[in-house]
């Protein structure tokens, strides 16, 4: 009774989605499945099989997977420490991690260029300390760094949110029953924070897979990601049909990856994909 009533709360958003998500999506399908003169074709979708596109897609998948893992590895201990410290209130922590994102994305990424360049800030500091310079700019490493930097808050916040909500008594009980810190983490905290991890992984993996600005600015445009290909078809090659076809393929890839991630959510309580 009560459940079905609650469902109505989703209705305004369902209408919103039909208007602003489904209709534009149909337009992408329309473009993706037709050629320039409007005839039905699968060429744009099958174009993903060409060597260039395949390579770009695999590279994007590899780079975004690595950055997601790095984000997770950095964010989880961080969220644990934040939970333990209880620095100020919850919103304070949230702010500290979100604040850098209020500075424009392009300006921040260009600031990384200033930091990483051959004659950049980091190398100047290293040379003062008589250390060998790093040459990371214009490599896949720099792209991963840029992705981790830009998307880390998306990983920290959901995990922290979930961890902060876990009752202290649960942890104390585990301790009383003889669990060490490590066991407490693996047996109690980790399983309980799965929904947060899944949210975080989604929010990092997806934008990392489709980005093109980061690879342009920090990769020196020498590394072609699938996002760059799509962007180029829309803005430079002006072949919208191909761009739309490739985006359709990319969407399928993202859906598959998300389903795979959701499988790890054994309790069946993670975000449903």
């Amino acid at each position, binding site marked *: 009774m009560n459940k079905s009533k609650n469902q109505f709360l989703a209705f305004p958003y369902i209408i*919103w989605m039909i208007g602003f998500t*489904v209709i534009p999506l149909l337009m992408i399908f329309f473009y993706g499945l037709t050629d320039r003169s409007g005839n039905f074709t699968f060429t744009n979708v099958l174009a993903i099989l060409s060597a*260039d596109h395949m390579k770009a897609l695999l590279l994007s998948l590899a780079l975004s997977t690595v950055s997601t893992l790095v984000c997770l590895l950095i964010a989880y201990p961080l969220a644990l420490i934040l939970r333990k410290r209880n620095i100020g209130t919850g919103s304070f922590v949230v*702010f500290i991690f979100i604040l850098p994102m209020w500075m424009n994305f392009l300006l921040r990424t*260009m600031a990384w260029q200033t930091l990483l360049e051959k004659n950049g800030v980091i190398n100047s500091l290293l040379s003062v300390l008589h250390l060998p310079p790093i040459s990371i700019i214009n490599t896949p490493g720099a792209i991963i760094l840029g992705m981790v930097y830009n998307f880390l808050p998306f990983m920290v916040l959901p995990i922290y949110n979930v961890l902060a909500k876990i009752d202290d008594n649960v942890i104390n009980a585990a301790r009383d029953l003889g669990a060490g810190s490590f066991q407490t983490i693996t047996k109690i905290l980790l399983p309980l924070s799965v929904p947060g991890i899944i949210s975080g992984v989604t929010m990092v993996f997806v934008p990392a897979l489709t980005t093109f600005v980061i690879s342009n600015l920090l990769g020196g445009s020498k590394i072609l990601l699938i996002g*760059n290909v799509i962007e180029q078809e829309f803005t430079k090659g002006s072949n919208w049909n191909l761009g739309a076809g490739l985006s359709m393929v990319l969407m399928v890839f993202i859906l598959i990856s998300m389903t795979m991630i959701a499988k790890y959510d054994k309790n069946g309580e993670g975000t449903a994909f």
Partner: protein
Amino acid sequence: MKTAHSRFKEFFENFYLVLVLIFLYAPIAVMMVLSFNSSKSRSQWGGFTFQWYSQMFESSAIMDALYNTLLIAFLSALIATILGTAAAIGVNSMKKLPKTVFMGLNNIPMLNSDIVTGISLMLMFIAFGVSLGFKTILLAHITFNVPYVMLSVLPKLKQTSKYTYEAAMDLGAGPVEAFFRVVFPDILPGVLSGFLMAFTMSLDDFIITHFTRGAGINTLSTLIYSEVRRGIKPSMYALSTVIFVTVLLLLLITNFSPDKAGTKSSPSKGVQTASAGSKNSGIRQKILLTAASFFIIAAVSYTSWRHVASSHSDELYVYNWGEYIDESVIEQFTEETGIHVTYDLFETNEEMYPVVEAGAVQYDVICPSDYMIQKMAENLLLAEINLDNIPNLKYIDPEYMEQSKSFDPQNKYSVPYTWGTVGIIYNTKRIEELGVPAPTKWEDLWDERYRGEILMQDSVRDAFMVALKVLGCSMNSVDPKELSKARDLLLTQKPLVQAYVVDQVRDKMLSGEAAVGVIYSGELLYLQEEAESLNLDYELEYVIPEEGTNIWIDSWVIPYNARNKENAEKWINFLCRPDIAKKNFEYITYATPNQGAFELLDKEYQENTSVFPDTSTLTNSEVYQYLGTEADDLYSALWKEIKSH
């Protein structure tokens, strides 16, 4: 023993926290330092200054953009939070199948790349006859914000026990009361972080905003991107610094103010504070709510009032490159003619084209480049200019009207505004160190000794132009054989290239990152003046390669759907006046085709053959032509091969 261990652990944890914070805030620190840099370059320190701060507060463009950005971010986040939270509760009690479908749909805006979302929304708005403007940006932002809200709220909802809600009902609370007093406090942290996330995403978005905005509306992002081409003004860094410091101060004040000390000292962990203070905060919440709604009403009415106030009888909508006019020229135009100018910016020809093609915003006068003018004319997007209304056309050097014929055969659609060449810029000291003679031809960019020292243009046509010229072919070639030869040539060059860049050539050359770069002649005066004022120990020289190069011309055109065509002609005529053209040249430093203005210039400029080369030496040079969609596809396929290699 135990204490030593825990002390070590604590030290380690602190160390880790500090490390992550340094990682997050290092670029912000860079931006703050740059805001005091008297040089416009992002890579060189030119001395300490406050001038960018005063410029920032004086610039109405920046202040308007800031206002729009904040208002859109706040409204879209607020509406998205309400929609998203309600939807999250609804979806949480759905059965498995509808839930999966719902979540799948919900994630679509996140799955698509921004550019796809942006263009598809623009197409839809146009298809349904919604005129682009403030409201379309708002609708678009809400659309991509809701998924982030849902992703924050859903995990929280899953943690709440449904029994507390039922218990509240059993104890006599109505469903609304039970929700707000039992469930809501539990999910509040998720709702708040969802709001914040939505606010943040909205602040940061560029691409979707670009395609859904209307004339005369800028957000900070669109303003910043339009500046990229000519170098970002440090006033943007100044603004970022101000925002950062303000927010940080607010944060510290609210967090460490005395009335919060009580809750802080309580042993309760983390988010429990949200429910702990819920009774006292009832009044505070009401005040906050009133303040927020007051703010919204005030802001919205201010916006609409401004809209009414700014609607003039005599109007002109101009669409131009960022930083491509001396702003005082616009003011002078309004003073002299009484025509109110709405001035919008684009960053590339390709980005401008769909906006005009779709008729999304009706501009009256636009300033595209040569090949794009041809494309627009071929696709019937241009109106013939009535040259009788432009008597000042006589000041334009006939040479450039002649050159224009390659893309506008009868000179009926376009009036030249600026022109230039593409050439090689080199760092005199660096090439000496490498032991290479100064470059004189494009072929020198294949010299092994330049390994990792070359900056190529990240643009299909410019890159192929270089290779085609080395091969002795036309840069407008559509012959697949010639083009695949050019591709092979570019592939052999790729290991030598440090990066393919568009706008960063400037900063990278100034900081000595690379020895040689391919650059537009218009950047030259800026670079040389900057190099001089920074007292660099090397010089930047420019050469037009022997094989010939691209001559580009940016011209004013009037689109077919212009509503104020006569005003547009007045505008073009005004810009052709020698004193105005001179003023513009001195600001933007791109060569002017205006003979009258050239004669007014300082000798120093007139004799600068890099900026004003003797056109008789440019015999092998060409102007880009529009090659048609088939050739476009071929070029972009070959370019992808090079980039993905």
